[in-house]
Each structure stands twice: as C-alpha cells, then as structure tokens.
C-alpha cells in the first residue's frame, strides 16, 4: 500500500502511466482511508492555488522599449574592449621613447646580431649610494650546544648595535653598452675597435666576423675596458661609423658587495670563536661538532669572498658589445638575391611580430591588476544600468 501512496500525488496530477493509474484507482476504490487522503491532497492543492495573491504586472512598457532599442555589450564584447585598451596601452608603452621599442626596422636585424642584452637604463638615473653606512643585523645562534658561539666571541658587544659597520663605499657599477654601427669595412672597424680597447687599458674578450655570400658583411666584438676609460672608449667607438643604436645600462652592486663584506667579517669572528672553543674542547663529540661547524663557516666565507671578488671584478671593467654592419658600397652592383632577402625579411618580420606579441602579453599580464578591476567595475556598472 505504501507504493500506492507514493504515487497518489502523481495520480491526482495526471502524471502516471495508464497501467499504474488503474492500479491506484483500484486501491482507492478498495481503501476508504486512501480516498480520504486523496481528498485532503486535492483540497491542499486547491487552497494553495486560491491563496496566491494576484500581482498586476508593472514595467512592461519600459522593458519592451528596452528590448526594441537595446544595443548593449555582452560580456565577451566588454572583455574584447578591455583587451583592446590593454593592448593599446602596451603599444603606447612600447613605442614611446625609452619604452624599449626599436625606432627603425633595421634595428630588428641589429638586435638579433647583438652579443649582449639590450635592456636600457641610463646610468644617470641610477640612485646614488651616498655616504651612508650599511648596517648588518646581528647574527644569532650557531653556537656549540646552543651556547651562541658567535655572540660570545672576544670583544663582541652584547648591545643591539650592529656588529659590523661597513665604511662608505664608492658606487660599484657593472656597466654594459651595446653599440650598433654602420661602417664602410666591418673587418677594418673590428681591428680599430680592438685597438681602442687596448689603448684605453682594456682588452677584447670575443670577436666574430661574418661575410656570407649574399648577406651584408658584419662583425661583432665584446670589449672590456676599465670603468674610468669606459666613456672615452665608447666615444672613440662611436666615431668609427654611423651610430644606428646606442644603449647602455648599469647595475649597481654596491649594496651586494657591502653586504658580502659585512657577512664575511661576521663569519670570520664566528670562525675565531670556534677556533678558541676548539682549543678548549676536551671531549671527542664536542671536538667533532665544533670542527664541523668551523668547516661550514669557512665554506661560507670562501663562497662569499668569491662572490665579492667576482662582483668587484665585474665592476672594475665595463663591457661594450659592438656590432659593425657594412654600408652598401657606392657603385657596387646590387647582388640579386631576392628570394633570400624575402625569406630573411619574412623571418625577421615574423620574429618581430612574435616578440611584440610576447611583450604585449607580458605587459597585459603585468598590468592586469589595473585593467582587470577597471574592466570588472565597468561590467558591473553596465549590468546595473540595464
């Protein structure tokens, strides 16, 4: 009988198949309680329908006007518009002076030939380190048996003042210049560039001369010159031909060097304290532990020292990447290599487009915290205005 009850509502609503409906009808005929139940359900349905208040519709004219004239943007259109704005913004950033874009189509080729990176940051915009003292925070822990060996080193103050005061340093700049020149003879200019490096107390680290059939002869060189003669060497190189592009960037490593030196001093103090402890140690276990820590500290000192020396070395000599490309010689018949030219132009063009798209994507991603909320707010406002 329970099964019949489960289908009673569906029977009353006319939602049962004929065979099942007949079964329910038979059960109803035989069971007065079931009939009573069915009557109650019917009454509930009728009462529910009667209780619902009638609500005269309003706003029809407004909605219909809207539907007739409506020309609103969908979410997809908003997103497209946002993307277009972001791309335009990126494009503006790329083409403005100093924004990183090449100003001439030729530069795409020159850039490909460049042996160094092409990021540009004018040296004049670098912040000055001034005469400020770099404070190094006190090292804690690291002592044998939790005793804080470094803190207990002879002559070590327990005040919160910094352990090491690093004297002021002259700014240490790793300077790199990328120079692209059009010259009459790439090989001659290459030889002259090497002479300029030598004359300014520097040297040549690598050269490359290319004179492939059908291609414009070119040469590249990487020169290292002392910081003091960097500008004069660069000036002399610029005079070798027509400057197509001139980029230079500087990386200030003053803080890194100062930090390394300060940490070395602290490590050395720690090393001394371990040596003292090693002399006083009696037990084998204690000796081994101190030795292990001493070895670790010495390794760190060596690593930091190597890092410091490398940075100082890089800062003492600046790098100039120079690329020479020959001008077409006057009166020289132009070599017919249209297919090769077309191929290289197409490849260069594609690379340029891909690079621009990549840059645009990166800009769009980086600027997403700005344009996405704006887009979202715009979309919300648009929804509200519906």
């Amino acid at each position, binding site marked *: 009988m329970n099964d019949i009850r*489960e*289908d*009673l*509502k*569906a029977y009353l*609503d006319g*939602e049962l198949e004929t065979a099942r409906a007949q079964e329910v009808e038979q059960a109803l005929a035989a069971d007065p309680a079931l009939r009573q*139940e069915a*009557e*109650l*359900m*019917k*009454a*509930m*349905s*009728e*009462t*529910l*329908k*009667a*209780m*619902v*208040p*009638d*609500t005269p*519709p*309003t*706003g*029809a004219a*407004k*909605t*219909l006007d*809207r*539907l*007739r*004239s*409506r020309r*609103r943007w*969908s979410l997809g259109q908003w997103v497209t518009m946002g993307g277009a704005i972001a791309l335009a913004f990126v494009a503006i950033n790329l083409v403005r002076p100093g924004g990183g874009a090449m100003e001439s189509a030729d530069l795409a080729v020159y850039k490909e030939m460049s042996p160094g990176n092409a990021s540009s940051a004018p040296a004049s915009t670098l912040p000055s380190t001034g005469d400020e003292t770099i404070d190094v925070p006190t090292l804690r822990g690291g002592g044998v048996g939790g005793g804080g060996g470094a803190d207990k080193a002879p002559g070590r103050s327990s005040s919160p003042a910094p352990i090491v005061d690093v004297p002021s340093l002259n700014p240490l700049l790793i300077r790199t210049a990328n120079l692209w020149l059009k010259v009459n003879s790439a090989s001659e200019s290459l030889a002259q560039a090497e002479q300029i490096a030598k004359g300014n107390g520097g040297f040549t680290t690598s050269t490359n001369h290319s004179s492939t059939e059908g291609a414009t002869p070119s040469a590249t060189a990487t020169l290292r010159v002392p910081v003091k003669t960097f500008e004069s060497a660069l000036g002399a190189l610029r005079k070798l031909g027509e400057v197509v592009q001139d980029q230079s960037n500087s990386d200030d490593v003053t803080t890194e060097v100062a930090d390394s030196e300060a940490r070395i001093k602290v490590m050395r103090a720690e090393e001394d304290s371990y040596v003292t402890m090693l002399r006083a140690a009696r037990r084998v276990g204690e000796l081994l532990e101190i030795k292990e820590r001493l070895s670790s500290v010495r390794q760190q000192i060596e690593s930091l020292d190597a890092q410091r020396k490398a940075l100082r070395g890089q800062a003492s000599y600046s790098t100039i990447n120079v690329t020479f490309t020959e001008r077409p010689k006057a009166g020289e018949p132009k070599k017919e290599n249209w297919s090769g030219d077309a191929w290289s132009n197409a490849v260069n063009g594609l690379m340029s487009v891909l690079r621009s798209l990549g840059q645009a994507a990166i800009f769009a991603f980086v600027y997403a915290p700005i344009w996405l909320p704006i887009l979202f707010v715009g979309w919300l406002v648009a929804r509200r205005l*519906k």
Partner: protein
Amino acid sequence: MDDRIRNAQRGDREAFAAFAAEHYSAVYRFCARRIGVTDAEDATQESFITAQRAIRGYTGASRIETWLFGIANNVCRQLARRRKLEMNTMRAWTPDPAPDGESTLVNREVLRNALAKLSDDHREVVMLHEVEGLAYGEIADVLGVPVGTVKSRLHHAFLQMRRHLGEGATA
C-alpha cells in the same frame, strides 16, 4: 515554432518585443512569486534581455513558456543571491479565511505555515506545480533535474505538509 520566434531568432527586435509583450504578464507573475513584487520588474526585464540574447538557441524542444520560466528562474536566483532576497517568498500571501464554497478541509494559515517549513527545494517544486501550473516534465526542464526527482519532491513535500496540517489540527 511560430513565425514571431523565427523572426526574433533572425535578429528582428520588433518580433521579439511582440513576443515579450505576450508573455510579459506570465513572466512577471512568475518572478513576483519567486522573489517578491519589489524586485519582480527588474527580474522580468533581465529575463527578457537574457532571452533575447539566447533566443537563437531555442530549438522548440520545450514549450516557449517553459523555456522562458527556466531563464526567469535562473535570473531570480541570481538576483536573490545578489540582493540577498528570500526565494519563493510567501510574504504577500493572504492568510484570509477561506471564502464561501472553498473546501474547509484545510486551514489556510496552517497550510501557509506548513509550506513555509518545507525546504527550499521542496517549496520550489510545490510552487512551480501548484501555483504556476507546470507539469512534472516542465518543472524538470526549468530546474534542470530529472522528472523522477520532481515527482519524489512533490510526494515528500505533500507528505510533510499533511503532517504539519495534522499537527496544526490537533493543536
């Protein structure tokens, strides 16, 4: 499928407006019963705007009213969530005594309370069937659930309401 719908599917705004004018009252009442009179106008407008965008996708597999109610139901749910409204509200329901001729088996106030005590899912099915007059299959289309679920929910909803009515009567 009538010509008006076909024209609307081809982008004829006038045809869609005529179609909307015909169904406006039904959709408005549907929305009013879902989220209340105050927000019904907004919900109705939003429903028709959504329907205008989606009309190309209407295949005629279900009645056009059912299709519209499906959209309106989703719009009401979104609006209720956004504006923190009570779905399937019964605030406007009148607990007036039954007029002459209505069955006296059921007390209106007790039935109203019984309906209010149902879960949202059960109350929604009861309203769609008893108030909107939708068949089980249409309710299944509107809610996106199987017909068996609709049948089961209605059975259990009435079972619970009957229990509450019994308690109300004894009380």
